[in-house]
């Protein structure tokens, strides 16, 4: 499943593992996380994550947001 990276601290959400700390069970896709879920490390909002599938430009993950746009297009 698709991994997502926090754009604030670069912590990676891996759906295969879920996030036991936040009572998110394994095999939970990022899209199914609650809207008010925040980064497990730094607390930034869910919207400040980006999919890891896309290329990295200047060392920064720049990829698809939940609505399918690329981050800085």
């Amino acid at each position, binding site marked *: 499943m698709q991994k997502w990276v926090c*754009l*604030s*601290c*670069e912590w990676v959400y891996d759906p295969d593992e879920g996030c036991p*700390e*936040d009572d998110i069970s394994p095999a939970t896709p990022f899209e199914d996380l609650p809207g008010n879920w*925040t*980064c*497990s*490390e*730094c*607390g*930034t*909002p869910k*919207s*400040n994550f*980006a999919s890891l599938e896309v290329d990295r430009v*200047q*060392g*920064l993950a720049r990829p698809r*947001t939940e609505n399918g746009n690329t*981050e*800085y297009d």
Partner: protein
Amino acid sequence: MNFDLKSHEAIQDPYALFAEMRETAPVHWNPSVKAWVVTRHVDAKTVLTDTRFSVEKLNPLVDHLSGKNKSKVGEIARVLGDWMVFRDPPSHTRLRRVLQGAFKPRKLRKQRRMVERVAEELLDTLEDRGQIDFLHDFAWPFPAFVIADLMGIDRVHVPKLKEWAVEIGKFVLIARSTPDKYDRAAKAIREITVFYQEVVDDHRRNPRDDLIGLMIRGGDDGSDFMSDDEIVSTMVLMLFAGHETTTNLIANGMLNLLRRPEQMALIGQKPALIPLAVEEFLRYESSVQMVARIAVDEIELGGETIAKGDRVYALTAAANRDPECFENAEHFDVTRSQNPHYAFGLGIHLCLGAPLARIEAQVAFAALFRRFSDFKLEADTVEWSDEFVTRALKALPISFRKRR
């Protein structure tokens, strides 16, 4: 190139200078601060994450000085040198691990109710006034009371702690026009150390489940021993890093909303935007404008060669407006959803208190918008404090109306 980062003009409004530096000299030796200055997002990331940039910069400063200043700064460095922000691994790892669990978002969610209570209590005292200095009446005491409560320190001590923090800040934040800053910081360090040692002693006699208790226990699993010197030093750091920066986050956020009524109205109509708005406050007018490092090797960056031992300033506030990274970077937009700012740094020194600062700012603005309306700036201009490391207002006079 002559970019004077310490000029009065740059302190009052640094962003045009930041843009010029990003475009014409993104990495350059800057005589005004005697350091390499790095302004682009991509290069700032390198400085923040590459282990060849060390945070152990106090000893080189002491070595560089001579005479009376050397002994005074040496005295300050002995205490501040135990701050995890001035330590590289492995000691950084140990000191951070003790407190890390307590500042995780999951743990802090349990403290949210306490943070909300502090905000409500303060606003209770302000609601009938209609006109306040937002900085001193709310943005300052709110995070001070929160951190005091978390540390288990009686709030009556907060004003004195604030005085000491200001004096230490003159050293840490590189005050531009305080010629006796070393004397004042050294005196404050002596006094605050005595005060905090008494607090630690009291916690040893009467164990409590707060942040000081956690440090005394050596972390959640008791495996990371901290000496009393390290505990006291970390308490100084927590007050220093956990208070003023959040004060400025809240005050700077309010200022930018006051200057843009249409953005203020967006939040008023849709309070669910507050978490995004807080990220934009952090990006657009960062409380901490830069981070300092020492190159421990010769490093190529942005086409320049940084020599071993050179001081390097990553101007994260400039990186946060880099158009290569942010669409409409100079535009303040509370609906911006993708916001990879460096207001809290990045890498192993990412601000430990970031989750707490976010909660405090979110709680503050949620309470403010729920209880009040018609916020207005009651001054033609605002003045910024005489520091270039932080972005701190001197005052923020506002008016508002109580909602019925």
